[in-house]
């Protein structure tokens, strides 16, 4: 097919895909007194999307930090130390990525309830601090870089702790960027677990708060709802536009989400 034809087809496909998104933004801006951000202001303070926003932000920050720290430590151990049975253990853990998360939903809820952690930041963060896929990504990256620097530091008498954090950590920047992006996206958009593990308005995250807003009213108030949807999506869309190349590269070659 000619290049122009292919291009036109692609543009048509993209416009078709953008159509519902454009409609969402139009509805969120069209107030009884003309185009304005009124719905945004109302849903922000009364929604209360300001609270949801802060919760989502706190949870994402903690979960990303936890994954970067703990997954790097585990990946470093798996990549650099000979541990008996480690390979088997590693692939066993990796295979659980395929497991539908719903399997542990009920027992995790029971556990959290027993620990008295339901409806707290603990419930929203603790179970998500170590994603096995991140350990896999970092380990693969570690295996591809030589151990010379670490050996040199070791000869200079550096302790394991400072080797990991002063020598290895800085070399991991590219893969940690992928880990941070991947973890932020999954966590920011996560619905099922935060929905089950919290029950007060104060502890809801953006997707959960948004879903509840859509169930609350007797008749659906599209203007406020779409303003809430745009508020929920905006941070990741802005992040996406900034880190576009890295996100597309990282998520399509890392080949999972």
């Amino acid at each position, binding site marked *: 097919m000619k290049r122009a034809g292919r291009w036109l087809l692609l543009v048509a496909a993209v416009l078709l*895909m953008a159509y519902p998104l454009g409609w969402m933004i139009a509805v969120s801006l069209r107030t009884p007194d003309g185009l304005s951000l009124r719905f945004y202001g109302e849903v922000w303070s009364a929604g209360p999307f300001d609270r949801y926003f802060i919760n989502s932000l706190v949870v994402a920050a903690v979960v990303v930090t936890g994954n970067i720290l703990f997954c790097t430590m*585990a990946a470093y151990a798996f990549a650099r130390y000979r541990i008996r049975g480690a390979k088997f253990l590693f692939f066993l853990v990796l295979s659980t990525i395929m497991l*539908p998360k719903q399997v542990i939903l009920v027992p995790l809820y029971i556990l959290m309830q027993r620990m008295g952690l339901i409806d707290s930041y603990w419930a929203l963060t603790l179970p998500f601090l170590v994603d096995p896929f991140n350990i896999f990504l970092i380990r693969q990256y570690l295996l591809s870089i030589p151990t010379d620097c670490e050996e040199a530091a070791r000869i200079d008498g550096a302790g394991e702790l400072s080797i990991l954090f002063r020598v290895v950590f800085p070399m991991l920047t590219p893969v940690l960027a992928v880990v941070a992006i991947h973890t932020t996206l999954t966590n920011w958009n996560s619905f099922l677990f935060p929905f089950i593990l919290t029950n007060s308005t104060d502890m809801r995250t953006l997707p959960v708060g948004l879903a509840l807003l859509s169930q609350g009213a007797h008749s659906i108030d599209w203007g406020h709802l779409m303003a809430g949807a745009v508020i929920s999506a905006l941070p990741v869309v802005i992040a996406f536009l900034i880190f576009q190349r890295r996100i597309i590269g990282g998520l399509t070659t890392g080949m999972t989400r």
Partner: protein
Amino acid sequence: MARRPSPVVWLLAPWALIYGTFFVFPFLFSFALCFLDYNPLNVANTSFVGGQHFARLIHDENFHGALRNTLFFVVGTVPVTTTLALALAWLLRGPLPMKNVLKAAMFLPSILSVVVIALLFKLFYAPGGALNETLRVLGLSGHTWLTDPATALPAIMAMDVWAAVGYYALVLYAAFTAIPESLYEAAELEGAGAWATFRHVTFPMLKPAIGFVLVINTIRSFQVFVEVLVMTQGGPLGSTNTMVLMLYDTAFRRLDYGYASVIAYAVFALSGVFSVLAMRRMRAQTPAQTRSVPA
């Protein structure tokens, strides 16, 4: 390095502790729950019921409906999404104006929360929404898509294709760009036409990537839940009830944790079987064919 094993312990400790507590333990517990009658309001009366939940599942009309809907969803979306993604990836190859903009636009839906997408389409399908308004402008009659049992599930499926196709197109596009140019030159030398080239060069080289796309999309599609919860809550008349929605209802509305666990394993088993089938089909022949073509 193995002579100093002590760092390993503290390096692995945070991961082992968190993973053990919040994944391994619940996982083992979920297995036990399948054989228990466990009511959270009356934990002291927990009893062992053997295979009773499994027997109940086999005869549960409600589950049959959920299973039918879920299978229809998977079989109706995964091949369509994959084919469209393949077409989009194929259109994207080579130099094109504004290629990065096109790629970004395609990728956009996959960074949105399913909740946002579901609400977006609830509006899209609503009376006075984008779809009905467009139909009206074209002189066609509108429809209440999500309240008609015949159209509710297909409408949600169309939304899923919309939301997923761009991401998979970019995965396949990455695989496209990895095909060596020499293979196409060889095909041209032998006088292969466009279709023959696609069939005998492009498709075999893409098989592993297509297999990957089929597997992750199948696993994801078997878990369809949030869309349904937000858009129809399983209605009208149970026409959009899915397995995971039923799991959620059983556990958190009926508080029947044991039976809910059995449903979770049914989802797990079915998605496992389907992904193995998809992987098998796509893996056949690939290595031999790549080797037989001179690079």
